[in-house]
């Protein structure tokens, strides 16, 4: 068990280090990093100071070391767009994105998993076919199209504009959560189906355990194990989706900040957001791996 935890920690750290290194390489070779990270409108001396501090005239490995040291001290550079530290801009936007993301995840879980489970239990029936059709629909539907349809529907039916800073989180969260809902449904179905057909379910039946008890006490806990992985994986899809969804709904989150920063070539801000996304993903996947320890005895005794 200790070996398992150590291996996962090591892997997470290595992944993060490689991600940071690749960001460094890209920034180093894409133009003048000093100008990109210095405060906007800084006079040439200040940029030179930055270049000096970053050691742009030193060997590459020293630059790399001081880059890492800088990140460790929390020096993430300044936005050319607003002149404020990238970290500050990010933190300002974070609450909105978290609100949107968690609402979307909640909707996806609350609708997707029951739908998929229901489909698995009623395999081959109309409910099953509906659930599968829905999951294909959710997969193929681009969220910008669905978002625009939601906005159009809101305007035509409710005479309300669903976008903007003060709008309700629901329409945007529904749009963002749609794809995840589809994949949760599909995954819950296949996971539960596999469990239902497992030999130990037949054996429980042969011991006289009634149907509902078999489902609740044996099928559900076993089927839930792989679902935990999916929740970790779906985070990436949610982050990707939020970039587009926030743009469509004019939602003032990190995704919108990212798109704006890319359009204005605000390297420091973009860099920070990329690092933040990598950190979040690595941390969540680490948590998922550790959660396995709690729910799967087979891993615990390894």
């Amino acid at each position, binding site marked *: 068990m200790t070996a398992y935890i150590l291996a996962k920690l090591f892997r997470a750290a290595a992944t993060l280090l490689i991600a940071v290194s690749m960001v460094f390489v890209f920034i180093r070779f894409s133009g003048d990093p000093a100008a990109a990270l210095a405060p906007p409108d800084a006079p040439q001396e200040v940029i030179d100071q930055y270049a000096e501090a970053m050691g742009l005239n030193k060997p590459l490995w020293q630059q790399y070391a001081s880059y890492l040291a800088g990140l460790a001290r929390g020096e993430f550079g300044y936005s050319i767009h607003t002149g404020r530290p990238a970290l500050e801009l990010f933190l300002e936007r974070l609450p909105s994105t978290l609100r949107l993301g968690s609402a979307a995840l909640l909707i996806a879980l609350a609708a997707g998993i029951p739908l998929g489970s229901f489909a698995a239990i009623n395999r081959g029936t109309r409910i099953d076919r509906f659930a599968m059709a829905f999951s294909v629909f959710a997969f193929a539907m681009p969220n910008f199209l669905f978002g625009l349809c939601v906005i159009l529907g809101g305007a035509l039916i409710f005479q309300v504009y669903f976008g903007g800073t003060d709008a309700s989180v629901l329409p945007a969260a529904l749009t963002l959560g749609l794809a995840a809902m589809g994949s949760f449904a599909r995954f819950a179905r296949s996971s539960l189906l596999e469990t239902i057909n497992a030999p*130990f379910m037949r054996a429980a039946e042969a011991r006289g355990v009634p149907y509902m008890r078999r489902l609740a006490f044996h099928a559900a806990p076993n089927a839930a194990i792989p679902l935990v992985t999916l929740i970790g994986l779906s985070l990436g899809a949610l982050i990707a989706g939020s970039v587009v969804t926030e743009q469509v709904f004019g939602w003032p989150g990190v995704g919108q900040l990212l798109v704006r920063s890319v359009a204005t070539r605000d390297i420091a801000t973009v860099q920070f957001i990329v690092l933040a996304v990598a950190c979040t993903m690595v941390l969540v996947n680490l948590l998922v791996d550790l959660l396995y320890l709690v729910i799967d005895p087979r891993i615990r005794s390894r």
Partner: protein
Amino acid sequence: MADAPAVLSIRNLSVALPEGGDRDYAVQGIALDVKPGETVCLVGESGSGKTVVAHSVIGMLPKALPVVDGKLRFEGRELPPQRSKAYDSLRGLKISLIFQDAVASLDPVQRTGRQLEEILAVHGVARRARFKRALEMLEAVGLPDPARIYRSYPHQLSGGQAQRVVIAGALLLSPKLLIADEPTTALDVTTQAEILGLLARLKKERGASVLFITHDFGIVAEIADRIAVMKDGEIVEFGAANTVLDAPEHPYTRRLLAAARKSAAVRESRSSQPVLEVDDLHLTYRTGGLLSRKSVHAVKGVSLRLEAGRTLAVVGESGSGKSSMARCILRLEAADSGAIRFRGEDITSLTGTRLRALRKKIQFVQQDPYSSINPRQRILSAIAEGPIIHDAPRREAEAKAADLLETTGLSAVAGRRYPHEFSGGQLQRICIARALALEPELLIADEAVSALDVSIQAQILDLFRSLQSKFGFAMVFITHDLRVARSISDDILVMKDGEVVESGLAARVFDAPAHPYTKALLSAAPDIASRRTAEAA
């Protein structure tokens, strides 16, 4: 016999197969009864419908296999229809079923103790009594440290321990009928003997009747009071054990028995120069990542010597290192230390083209014929591939392959087909033909008949023998089955935990085993020849 009312009586049971199968019925016209305290063995080869009978008794036939005719009566009353809710109060309480794979029939995320208590709970045993009864039952099935087993998860148990837990669950409520579906097939021979003994003892103590399903006549001879022989969905013979074993009426039963009895006269020994010599061979497997490295010392100092034209049987239970040793000789695995000499030449560290040239002389037949041939390759091209690799012209190689198909008992037209069109026995013939296409001097067969039904097994063993006398290769025959070893070997090597515990002429080892482990193996192996009573175990 006729006076005692039957615990289970099956009359004229027929179960349909879905359309498009190779026959219309899974089972047809089954008539069978099990009397109190009796063990009835239902014996037959794979696909004969034994399991369908078992599942119909416990009401677990799937919808795709509907009962079209017949009556099932249990303790004089008719059993409810298949899959009906009424079965919940019978299963586990009055009728229990145990499966072949014990580990897989336990919920992997629940402690074994909780799973035992669940059986008590669903059948209405008071909460306070459950723990004690589960623990007592674990003790009754002979598990060491029942309290620890109670707290264990299924993956922490060995196959034998898991089967004991499953048996504990099945007999927890002292059911009148226990159906055991190949419960020892996945186990080693010594564990199998223990489990059979345990079942016999518990059956007597708790007054249960047993319907025992198996393909193995050795087991049947050991435990059966009465025997029903199944073939293609029908019972072809049903009678008292002694009658069926000593004077079988149906030709199919006779064939099965003959195949199982084939402990043929031990072959005479000739002697010549050694083809293969192995000295102090060691092999360690290393697995795991950077932080969780594990190593298994699979082969620990094995030495052996094999002369031309002779057969050496390597016998041992799973995990004894016999297959690892074979992979070393084949140079599929690199040995840690030791020497392998082929016709006097040290081949332990050959590489590149010299290694590939050596492969022509040492060939290999594996256990699972289904996975041993590339599914996208026609049979003829699979057999001809060896010679083609070693620079034979394609036409010549294919002509030779067609010849070999006939030599191994298939027709030459079979060469145009793909592997999925053949049965296991046919595929094993093809694998043998492929190995012989290179005219090897040494053939290594790793459990080459273990995956086959017993009558097919006998045919393939015959084929090995006749091909050996025709082509004159030496053979290393790896098997866990003593009957197979006895019927094919000149010499024998017994392995345990990676080491050789005994070796010598087959006749000598079988008649006068020296090492206690060999003795244990021999006495554990179920054997028709020496029928013992179940009570003795």
